[in-house]
């Protein structure tokens, strides 16, 4: 950058580059805090890496391609026999049911809360209700679901138990309750995205004579597609990771046991297992005692979570400078909005 008539090279004096501010001059209590921070940070790194490395090592040690295609088989030689094909299928079915129910419902609810919200007290109550669901432990949802699905009029969703009463446990039952679990995350993400769409977009659409419904359908929702997708991905993550609902509502058969003759419906009315319940069962806390298979299945779960995280990153990466931390934060805390409309 040459300007004026100075010849820098001949008169450039010795350059002093400032050192990073050292903490040596701080009072003792500040220094203690500083070093505690560093220590905690390093400990966090180590523990995080330890967990990841441990799961990787164990998983790779016990993971064999055969596991993916074989069904669980009861046998004395637990570590050698069977695989987790059924659990994988189970996970897929549950996630599909849960997402298919929760996604449209979640988006619709978010749209109603954000764009319509009349009468106001009702909207506030609904918002609180969604927050309540977010805070309810999944066990409570699960046993509530059990109660509901054990009613005789819902017997078509599951099967009849030996003593004639409704069994109440099936893929349908578990899937529907999983949808309730994922709902707050989808609603939170979508609402957050909707509040960030500037009002002038809506006003422009109304000024062209479009109704509110059209605006929502053709203008707003398409513009927040990535955030909706990321909310759905977060919901899927929660569904995949939950075990309590599966244990209570899916019956404890390792393999998929269909009911009745109808091909798809029969499976959905039947019982089975998912990766999470498989891990639980194979651990010392469950029935079996095959930690190797538990590790392998846990490793697969980890990979799925990793893939979902990467997906969420891709979806929100362009819009969100704070990264995933913000996406998670927004979906989980879902700030209350000012009722300006």
């Amino acid at each position: 950058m040459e300007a004026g008539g100075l010849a820098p090279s001949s008169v450039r004096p010795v350059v002093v580059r400032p050192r990073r501010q050292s903490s040596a001059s701080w009072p003792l209590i500040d220094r203690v805090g500083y070093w505690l921070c560093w220590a905690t940070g390093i400990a966090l790194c180590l523990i995080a890496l330890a967990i990841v490395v441990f799961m990787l090592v164990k998983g790779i040690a016990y993971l064999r391609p055969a596991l993916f295609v074989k069904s669980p088989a009861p046998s004395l030689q637990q570590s050698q026999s069977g695989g987790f094909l059924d659990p994988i299928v189970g996970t897929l079915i549950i996630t599909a049911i849960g997402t298919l129910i929760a996604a449209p419902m979640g988006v619709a609810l978010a749209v109603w809360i954000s764009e319509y919200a009349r009468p106001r007290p009702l909207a506030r109550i609904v918002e609180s209700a969604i927050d309540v669901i977010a805070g309810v432990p999944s066990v409570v949802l699960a046993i509530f679901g059990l109660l509901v699905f054990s009613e005789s009029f819902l017997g078509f969703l599951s099967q009849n138990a030996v003593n004639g009463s409704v069994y109440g446990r099936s893929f349908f039952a578990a899937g529907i309750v999983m949808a309730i679990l994922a709902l707050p995350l989808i609603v939170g993400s979508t609402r957050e995205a909707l509040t960030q769409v500037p009002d002038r977009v809506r006003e422009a659409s109304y000024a062209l004579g479009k109704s509110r419904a059209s605006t929502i359908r053709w203008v707003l929702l398409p513009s927040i597609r990535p955030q909706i997708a990321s909310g759905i991905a977060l919901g899927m993550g929660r569904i995949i990771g939950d075990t309590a609902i599966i244990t209570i509502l899916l019956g404890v058969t390792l393999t998929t046991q269909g009911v009745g003759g109808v091909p798809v419906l029969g499976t959905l009315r039947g019982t089975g297992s998912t990766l999470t319940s498989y891990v639980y069962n194979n651990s010392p806390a469950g029935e079996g005692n095959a930690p190797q298979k538990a590790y392998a299945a846990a490793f697969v779960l980890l990979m799925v979570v990793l893939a979902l995280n990467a997906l969420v990153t891709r979806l929100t990466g362009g819009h969100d400078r704070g990264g995933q931390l913000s996406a998670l934060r927004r979906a989980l805390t879902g700030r209350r909005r000012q009722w300006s409309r």
Partner: protein
Amino acid sequence: MEPLMPPPVRRIAVDRDPHVAPPAPSPNGAAASAVAPAQGRRRLTPPDPATVRERMRIESVWLAYGENWVVRDVTLPVRQGEVLALIGASGSGKTTLLRSLNRLTEITAGAARAGAITLDGEEIHELEVNDLRRRVSMVFQQPNPFPMSIYDNVAYALAEQRPARGRRRRRTPQLERAAQDALRRAGLYDEIATDLDRSALRLSGGQQQRLCIARALAANPEVLLLDEPCSALDPISTATIEELIVALRESVAIVIVTHNLQQAFRVADHVAFMHLGELIEYGSSEQVFDRPAQQRTRDYISGAFG
């Protein structure tokens, strides 16, 4: 070519002069008296020579960010009892120079400095940095009061000087007195005396900026650095703060960076004009505004660029 005239200054009735007659634009290049606001009585009375003493000295200072030299070979004195204004176009390095006076440039990685800056004879690089910043305080362009009460804001830096011995001790009589003093010096005390516990964010823009000045004054600094303090404020608040600056110059050395030539004219005793990192001209404000020695200074003041 006819020099362009800066727009006439119309004063809002805050001081004793009700208004100033806007100057007639001079038809030909009488560039020597190019500064229109020279008409009318200036707000400033010249400083009392007895109170003027040199506080800081900037000697052949070069400043760089990464590979770019942003300030080149600047030498300036900073004196208590008078106001030094740094003027220049954007990118002239005046803000960087200001920030180097309290070593705020060190926050940015890759900043480098050459030359000497001394405070009361001591090189500031040798001093403990937080100590230095208490002696050389800074007020920023945007008012930035903390999200706390007014009292807490003013006492913020003060409480640091003693080892914190529990929150309850914060409101000692000494601290209270010091805070009140600072608020009085900043001209804010009378307006808010009853309500020191109010949130500082509820004040108006001008009040917030005066609060920031009070906060900076609370530790009794020797030098006060002002980085375009009025650029975000309305004219009335601006006038109030300019009066404040003039009143404060007796007790604190003041360096103000400003984009606003008229403001520099109103408040400064000495003016330093910088362009692209170099110090083009330094002198008393009468000399620089009425009889600029350098052509570039003349161009800037008459508005040929900026």
